[in-house]
């Protein structure tokens, strides 16, 4: 499906470089200026470069899928306003992956390549995605950036880097949620912001590789941080009645409840049913609280909840400017954190392609290898922080758990809902934090 784009107007007269860069300040973070510089004032007016996205535009993940689409559209328009890639504008195409099973994902990506001849596929996530898409990509030779956040990607690339040279994961794998969370707990304990009432931690997950991998990572390393897993419960989704689970939690109250299931409505119901008779437990949830629906449904019961993401727009100058542009264009309730993923991915690819002398179409393996080489070595500062690939696994490195230098890894952000009428406050990691951790009301 071709997109009706709202194009940013290209200047009628090519401006001086300084004026041009000033006008485009903020586009794509630091990379916007870099791309404009490489384009050297060229206008995007050559033959269009097709770029594709396979996203869940319908079905249960459509809320994110629509934002992935918006993020790529916005990136393409901005990149075109910066001169495209060496003067060639980007033209986005989209295919629906619905429930995101491998069969659907592969068909969608194959259509993008066969029907539109895309030079790159810039996705958000497809939770059911396994090794199938990288194989389609490898056979066609084009570039693929995704945000599946899966260790499966790392293993696959490491198994045959020559074949999978074009597949990149723009964020750290989900595994890093585990050690990152345990490290975060240690930090707030050491700084005196939180005191555990006992050593027990309850882990609640849903059936699915993503939630299970995070839960397993927490469970497997909990003992190293002095935690004992008192409950490890898998729930069926959707789940709206948490009474039996809460009854078990109340019988043996843990100091921390870690929920890796991520549907916002389900998590909101958990809080609504937890708060009337709470246990003295810190509550950490996965992803769901980042969506406005969580706060709308849970209301005041959402206040105090911690959540995290390994990829999301930062609350700094670049991230806030992106959020403002995004919401101005797509509406006040638009989910800019999801849109930020393919937005950053598109810039990463565009800058690398410009540095490599241009993009490669399907079957142009040599040119695409040059682009991939640049992507592997590039340090890109976007709205989600720093993207720097681990060259063996072609996956973004995580800060502060995988690398300790904030300029060399994507920040694993911890946020807390402190006011249910506003978004979460970024409380870690330094130097990106903008607020202090606040002890939830039920902890006294």
């Amino acid at each position, binding site marked *: 499906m071709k997109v009706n784009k709202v194009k940013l107007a290209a200047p009628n007269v090519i401006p001086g470089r300084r004026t041009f860069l000033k006008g485009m300040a903020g586009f794509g973070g630091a990379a916007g200026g870099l791309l404009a510089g490489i384009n050297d004032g060229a206008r995007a007016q050559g033959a269009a470069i097709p770029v594709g996205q396979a996203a869940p535009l319908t079905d*249960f993940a459509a809320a994110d899928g629509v934002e992935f689409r918006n993020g790529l559209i916005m990136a393409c328009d901005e990149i075109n306003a910066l001169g495209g890639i060496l003067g060639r504008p980007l033209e986005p195409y989209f295919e629906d992956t619905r429930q995101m099973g491998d069969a659907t994902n592969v068909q969608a990506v194959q259509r993008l390549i066969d029907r539109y001849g895309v030079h790159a596929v810039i996705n958000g996530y497809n939770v059911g995605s396994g090794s199938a898409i990288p194989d389609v990509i490898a056979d066609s030779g084009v570039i693929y950036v995704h945000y599946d956040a899966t260790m499966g990607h790392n293993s696959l690339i490491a198994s045959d880097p020559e074949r999978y040279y074009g597949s990149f994961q723009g964020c750290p794998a989900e595994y890093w949620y585990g050690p990152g969370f345990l490290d975060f707990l240690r930090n707030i304990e050491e700084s005196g912001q939180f005191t555990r009432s006992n050593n027990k931690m309850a882990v609640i997950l849903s059936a699915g590789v993503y939630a299970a991998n995070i839960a397993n990572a927490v469970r497997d390393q909990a003992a190293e941080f002095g935690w004992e897993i008192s409950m490890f*419960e*898998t729930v069926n989704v959707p789940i709206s009645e948490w009474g039996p689970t809460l009854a078990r939690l109340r019988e043996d109250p843990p100091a921390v409840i870690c929920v890796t299931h991520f549907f*916002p409505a389900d998590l909101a119901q958990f809080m609504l*049913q937890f708060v009337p008779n709470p246990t003295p437990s810190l509550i950490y949830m996965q992803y769901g609280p980042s969506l406005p629906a969580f706060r*709308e449904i849970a209301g005041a019961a959402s206040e105090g909840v911690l959540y995290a993401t390994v990829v999301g727009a930062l609350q700094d100058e670049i991230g806030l400017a992106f959020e403002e542009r995004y919401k101005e264009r797509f509406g006040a309730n638009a989910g800019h954190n999801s849109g930020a993923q393919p937005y950053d991915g598109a810039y990463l690819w565009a800058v690398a392609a410009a540095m490599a002398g241009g993009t490669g179409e399907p079957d142009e393996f040599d040119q695409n290898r040059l682009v991939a080489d640049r992507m592997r070595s590039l340090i890109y500062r976007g709205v989600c922080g720093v993207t720097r690939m681990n060259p063996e696994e072609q996956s973004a490195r995580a800060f502060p758990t995988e690398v300790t230098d904030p300029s060399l890894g994507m920040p694993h952000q911890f946020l807390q809902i402190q006011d249910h009428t506003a978004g979460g406050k970024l409380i870690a990691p330094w130097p990106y934090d903008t607020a202090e951790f606040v002890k939830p009301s039920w902890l006294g």
Partner: protein
Amino acid sequence: MDVTLQILFSGLTLGAVYAVSTVGLALVFGALNMLNMAHGALLALGGYACMWAMQSLGLPAPLAALVAMAVGAAVGGAIFVLAARPMLGQEGFETRIFIATIGIGLVLENVIHKFFGPQPQAQPLKLDGGMMFGRVNLPWQNVLIFVTAVLMMVGVAMLLGRSRLGRAIRATSMNRDAAQLMGVPIRRIYALILMLSGALAALSGIMISSMSSLLPNMGADPMLKAFIICVVAGLGNVPGAAGVAFALGILEALIQYVFGVQYAFAILLCLVIVVLIWRPQGIFGEREVIRL
């Protein structure tokens, strides 16, 4: 004591949610021998229509619920006009309408997606707060869902058992041709049943979305559970379906507490298999399940 109360409240809540999901589906199958696979989409449509009436038209909650039921009834009527009526009397009606309503459900779901977007939204029609029994909280919303489920079932039972229309419906469900020969306006009965089912589905959708959220595909899971309950009770048996809904709700809550949440649905499905081996027509059913 607290645990027992919690399991009981959770079980009754689950049962009430299952019951409200099931009533419309059971009614249509019982009366028309028709599996309405668009039932899940009708649930979602009702939830969204209520939200729209409250937020865009500024109507109070009871009026908004009535608007949603009217929308559900209208769509039920449209299903009759566009799908059921042309197929009535044709060979293999049950199979044809089963497939047609799958398509109608998909269309409805995509229309909702188009107009309201994919983001989960809160249902504005809900009751805040609750009452404490010891240390167990019983939300007013759960009480509302329970009461609604009971009223819906009593209302449908009275309609079927004690009214002239109900007699016509029962006659139609027993033998369509004989009923027609006796002067029952078959087509009007079919249209009324589908409209009534649509209205009930809309009310159910409001209740279900108040416990979770509004999503275009929010009806899929309740539809699955409703279908299982209908099969166990005996397809088309409304009071039986209601009883089974509450029994399964309490059993599910108990299994969740004793064995863990992950085992509840699997154990329930095993029990369903056992029941169907023992009574293929369902616990309260009088004829064998139609195998499509």
